[in-house]
């Protein structure tokens, strides 16, 4: 049953799917675009934004692609006139309770709501009515929360509970007054917040933004440089966002095989050291009482000579290496290879053992 292959058609394109796969997932795999605001591969399907509604042949009402499981010989149409109209109205409803300040919003250029409004030509004036006017929360050292820009996709609350399992935030209130918040609106830091910024990473609008990157560059001005986190041996990948030669923020790399875009506080916010004046940027060799800056070649040559002379004089048991858990697995593998095969010693260890 579980391995059965199901064949469905999306926009007349035939797609083979696995049992229990959702229509949205199948469409993504096949490169077919379906708009959504509340979907994130890291989270359970939610079905809240209702933008991924699609037409399924034989079903009178539109179905949400994100929660509808595929069924054999299902025929899906992702865009019809009536579905486009519903989507446009949904976006217009969202915009009717959204501040019109894209011009100074941190998320401009990296905002799904903005993209969708553009795509569907939506504005909030037709359904204009009461708008939230809530204070912006700056009570967290890393995260700015502007509830007025929240569209209640629930991604922040779900990532906090499903992935991080910190349980800092949840949906509160009811109806038009529902919003994600801590219990009794207390500062996040008092409610078990780990400052991982996972909520920021999943927010599709400018409701949750990184404090550290504020005003330092628009998404389209930033060059993304993929790197591996240097803090521990897990090997999380992320993108350093660089503008004018400076790292201004860290964003998730969702295709990273180890962490799928998830990060902890160190990886996401601990990048100040990169541009620190105290940072050692070149190898130093002690000459007399002082350290002297040397080139990499010179430093490596120096170390090699020292090892060689030690090995010659005292044998392999006299040397060893102790590597860091902040190195990648590959680096740790290389150091162990060096010690065991070149030095012919078993004296190799890592600080992660303690």
């Amino acid at each position, binding site marked *: 049953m579980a391995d059965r292959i199901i064949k469905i058609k999306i926009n007349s394109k035939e797609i083979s799917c696995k049992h229990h796969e959702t229509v949205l997932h199948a469409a993504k795999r096949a490169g077919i675009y379906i708009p959504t605001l509340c979907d994130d591969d890291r989270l359970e*399907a*939610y*079905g*809240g*934004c*209702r933008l991924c*509604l699609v037409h399924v042949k034989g079903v009178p*009402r*539109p179905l*949400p692609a994100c*929660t*509808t*499981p595929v069924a054999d010989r299902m025929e899906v149409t992702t865009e019809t006139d009536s579905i486009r*109209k*519903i989507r446009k*109205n*949904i976006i217009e*409803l*969202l915009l*009717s*309770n959204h501040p019109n300040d894209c011009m100074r919003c941190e998320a401009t250029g990296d905002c799904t709501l903005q993209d969708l409004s553009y795509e569907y030509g939506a504005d909030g004036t*037709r*359904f204009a*009515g*009461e708008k939230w006017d809530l204070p912006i929360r700056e009570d967290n050292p890393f995260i700015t929360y502007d509830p007025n820009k929240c*569209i*209640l996709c*629930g991604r922040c609350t779900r990532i906090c509970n499903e992935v991080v399992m910190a349980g800092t935030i*949840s*949906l509160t*209130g*009811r*109806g*038009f*007054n*529902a*919003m994600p918040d801590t219990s009794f609106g207390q500062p996040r830091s008092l409610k078990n917040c780990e400052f991982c910024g996972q909520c920021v990473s999943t927010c599709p609008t400018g409701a949750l933004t990184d404090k550290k990157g504020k005003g330092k560059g628009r998404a389209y001005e930033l060059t993304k440089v993929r790197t591996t986190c240097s803090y521990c041996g897990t090997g999380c990948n992320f993108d350093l966002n660089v503008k004018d030669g400076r790292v201004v923020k860290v964003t998730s790399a969702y295709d990273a095989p180890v962490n799928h875009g998830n990060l902890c506080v160190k990886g996401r916010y601990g990048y100040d050291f990169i541009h620190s004046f105290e940072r050692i940027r070149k190898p130093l060799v002690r000459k007399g009482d002082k350290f002297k800056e040397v080139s990499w070649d010179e430093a490596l040559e120096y170390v090699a000579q020292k090892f060689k002379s030690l090995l010659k004089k005292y044998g392999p048991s006299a040397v060893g290496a102790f590597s860091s858990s902040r190195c990648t697995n590959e680096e740790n593998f290389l150091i162990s290879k060096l010690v065991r095969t070149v030095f012919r010693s078993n004296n190799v260890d890592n600080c992660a053992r303690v």
Partner: protein
Amino acid sequence: MPTKTKLRGPEISDLMIKVCVGTGGLAAGSREVIEEFDRQLRSKGIRATIVKKCVNKTGCRGFCARDVLVDVIRNGRPDTYELVTADRVARIVEEHIVQGEPVQEWLVGPEYHDFHDKQTKILLRQCGQIDPEDIEAYIAIRGYKGAKKSLALDPYEVIEEVRLSGLRGRGGAGFLTGMKWEFCRKSPGDPKYIICNADEGDPGAFMDRSIIEGNPHAVIEGMIIGGYAVGANLGYVYIRAEYPLAVERLKIALDQARKKNFLGKKIFRSEYDFDIKIKLGAGAFVCGESTALMRSIEGERGLPRPTPPRSVTKGLWGKPTALNNVETLANVPLIMSKGGKWFATFGTPKNTGTKVFALTGKVKNTGLIEVPLGIPLKEIIFDIGGGVEKNRSLKAVQTGGPSGGCIPASHIDMPVDFDSLSRIGSMMGSGGMVVMDETTCMVDMSKFFLAFTESESCGKCVPCRIGTKRMLEILERITEGRGRKNDIDLLIELGTDIKLASLCGLGRSAPNPVLSTIQFFREEYEAHIHDGVCPSRVCKALRQYTVSEELCRMCGKCFRACPSEAIAWEKKQKAVIDRTKCIKCGACYDACPFDAIL
């Protein structure tokens, strides 16, 4: 309760007094009435020999408009008093019980008998007759026979019997109960659960509360049978905390059932274990939605989730779960003891059995009624309900509470069943039935219901959360005289989209009152928007008070009633209203004895 009288004195054989202690009765003062009866009987030294309890408490008998209702039964002949208060008790005891002459002027009138005689009571028959706090009273009327019989059968035979009855879920959607149980039984997964949905949230609906208050054992028995049929060993009753009396009686009933081994291990000396837990709801209307209800039992925020998977395959804690409404479950013991075929003799072939409705609004006899499905709406309103209050003309009937739609008076002959109601754009819902007359403004009425659903939306999906808010704002501006030309089209567009795009039943049905009133009473909306007039004179902002020169008798009552000095009047002169000063409070309208304020 000091109900056991151990007194020496004149012995009156065959005396029983039944006092309604439903929530309606209690609110009207039945506790004081019971105490007063006890005191009076004691002081006169009367004791009854036939029944242990001389003064009996009973559940709601439905006719709440005339509470406190008291039956004095002597030699098997009941006399029913209405609107009894504690200070009327002494005379009833003296004249009726001691002297044997019923107090004629306080006895119920013909509408009481019309109200009851024209109903078909199979479910509510026991409510108002037996003591809900005594399991023996229920057993005496063949209670728990159905459960006993079921446990001797194969679970599939039980399901077959329920299927044969044609019973459809009374919670609103009308899904076949037998089919639901079969799906749950056949779903792989262990353990399984059965849940009784007693989170009755519709404003004005109180049938589930009355059933639990009046006959809690019927619900427990229904759950035992259902639990056995689907293969569950644990059941939950999800009940609103706002129903303290129902919760209390349910707790008492559960304790009594456990003592009798009707609940617990190897119940009824069979191999089957079953017990029931009570889970109190915290007041969210959306928790009446099945998936949200289960989330709430799990301790999470009551958010509905999309289906499939349906609850029968993945329900409470991801296990197969059968969720049934109170009324549905209360029907099950009758089906099992009397047979599915017997049940199917009531109602119509596709809508079998009876349905309890909470009849409210501008109708003479308000209260709880039970009628066979398929009965013409007309019979409910005019025969049982006694017609419209003050003999005004009927305008519409709203069924299904805030999720339902309104049925205009022109459709009064339609049968009341699941399919006919949904065809006309309304729904059965939990069974609220609000009668409206010419003094009801349809825009105002739909605003009332929409305000309820808007504030009770869980906030999860966009169309329901913001869409109903915007619809409500449009209705507000229409009733305040700020309606815009295209507002009706906007309401229809929004309403249609909300119905199509919302996640759960709350959002999908929330626009119903608005859409159905636009369908049948569009001219009222237009009058508000284009003419600035509320034809029913309900919407305050649109009222323009004037004094009719023809009708004014120069009494000056309006002048004295006006709080804003907007009325000019002198003796022997007709009153005149200064519109610039008028605050449209309506005090003059109410004060005028000649209907001269227009």
